[in-house]
């Protein structure tokens, strides 16, 4: 996973998806990752074992990425990838 030319990104998982983070990262809801260049959002979802149907709200740096773009959008250094299951509130 870790390569010399890797890009550093943060994976943030919330609500019931937090259970998929390693225990020490759960409280902060954040895992720092170093990924090979070109790794897409869908790659990260797959590598972390997240059920794709649970990855409803996907934000990169706070901006929504539609489902169709997740397999092609490569993460770049400094990106913050935050994911929620289906949620609502008010």
């Amino acid at each position, binding site marked *: 996973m870790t390569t010399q030319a890797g890009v550093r990104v943060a994976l943030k998982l919330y609500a019931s998806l937090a259970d998929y983070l390693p225990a020490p990262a759960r409280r902060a809801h954040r895992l720092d990752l170093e990924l090979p260049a070109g790794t897409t959002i869908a790659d990260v979802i797959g590598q972390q074992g997240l059920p794709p149907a649970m990855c409803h709200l996907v934000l990169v740096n706070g901006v929504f990425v539609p489902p169709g773009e997740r397999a092609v959008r490569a993460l770049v250094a400094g990106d913050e990838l935050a994911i929620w299951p289906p*949620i609502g509130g008010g």
Partner: protein
Amino acid sequence: MAWQRKILRVNLTNGTCTPEPLNMEWAQDYLGQRGLATKYFCEEVDAKVDPLSPENKLIYATGPLTGTMASTGARYSVITKGPLTGAIACSNSGGYFGAELRFAGWDMIIFEGKSAQPVYLHIENGKTELLPADEIWGRSVWDTEAILKKKHQDPMIRVSSVGRAGEAQVLFAAIVNDLHRAAGRSGVGAVMGSKNLKAIAVRGTLGVGTIRNPAGFMQATVAAKKVLANHPVTGQGLPKFGTQVLMNVINEMGALPTRNHRDVQFEKAGRISAEAMHEPRPTDGKPNLVTNQACFGCTIACGRISKIDETHYTVLNRPEYWGASGGLEYEAAWALGAATGVGDLEALTFANFICNEDGIDPISFGATVGAAMELYDLGLIKEADVGFPLTFGSAEVLTRLAELTARGEGFGKEIGLGSKRLCAKHGRPELSMSVKGQEFPAYDSRGIQGMGLAYATSNRGACHLRGYTVASEVFGIPVKTDPLVTEGKPGLVKAFQDATAVFDSSGLCVFTTFAWTLADLQPQLAAACEGDWSMEKLALLGERIWNLERQFNNAAGFTGKDDNLPQRLMTEPAKTGPAKGLVSGLDKMLPEYYELRGWSKDGVPTPATLQRLGLPA
């Protein structure tokens, strides 16, 4: 039928309680609750009335599905002219009180006049009486409920009351039922207090036996409950995390108004989020959240029940606050926390308990504290004026002000005026983050553009529950739209506003709309209520209610100029996050919105629009 066809008219000046038949013609045009009570209110009250005078009226209204087997059939609304805004006020509450009122055989109670002495209304089915409130006046909502249950020797009595804040006519005082469910906004509690009306205690054993087609209704409600259960938001997300799940989302999107909207992201958002409420505390190993809770008949159960850490400074040696009680919902957590810069979850929970205990709206309270903190920061409020420094981020200041405001004491009296009057008093009216005098809820319209238009045009002043475009702009319900653009938002806002008006008039909870559309509500209404309840009729109904409220506000003196946002949101760009560099694009949306509504360019419904909706000119 579904309606009980009975209204109770209570003249507080004369001390009389008079039953009268419900106007069934109006029920066909306005359904119930918000719509029907607004019709009654507009017919009976001069729009120019002083909200705190005896001439103002206060209507408690249920919908035809309140107290039925429909999911979320818990709701009632309080309709009056709001003292915080001077606009029509309609505050909606859940819990068990509304259903009980229906079980007692009543659709609505209209209070008029003012009692010479503090009184409460006692209802036991058809028996209604005004009784002296000597032993409960001056007491909190929590004490009031306990005293009335004991006095009437009936633990099943449901109580809706004002606390000391309503008595003191705090301009954002709430009416609270079942200890922690509230008709929270616009100061409906101050109107109740101004009438010397302390509480309504109701016991009903008649049930709602007036369903038009019971078998069809059973079928329709079962089908609709399945939709709620199978939807990930209403079936899993809301029960487990409540509305508070939004804290991290909205912060990540750069739309979390922070420190009186100076910033759009709060560095301590994670500490006051739904996730934090689930985490065991280092002090006692227990999480803040004890359980979720449902209102009457609700199969969603989004309510939060929390317990404060007994070693926290707010409750040290105060065992009366050690029990489990109403916990933080998103809007309250935002206002008490991000708006003031306070990141202490236990302090926020305590402030929320106080808001429930004595009935104040946590949104307007927290936002007004945020404004006061900015005025202090600018040197316009001095420590000597308050007795302590109003520093942004101080939990102690927040909790102290909560107690003072809820009891109408000390500097709490100034906070109790709301941010508009407070900021005007200190020469900086533009620092009040409000529309029509009512403070914003928890979404910054620079980062969620549709909400800017929803706030500006909301008939009860800034409000998220009048047109929740967040559902589309954030969650993708019914379709995902880009929160940073203004295109398409006028149509979205109008659609949400009209549909919400229907739900608010039915007796059901608007949170069902994360899974339901009007097409899920329609078969339930059609089976329960006599008359034509087609989709076309419902669409028209929502629009009619919206326009009726607008007409009241226009008659009260509001104009298109009041469909506005504070200067800060229009001229100071967001500093961080996806909306960095953006201001609200309200000016781009408003003309199109007026056009879609069939209003003149000054925001007045045209004669053709009124005629189409069957409203008098």
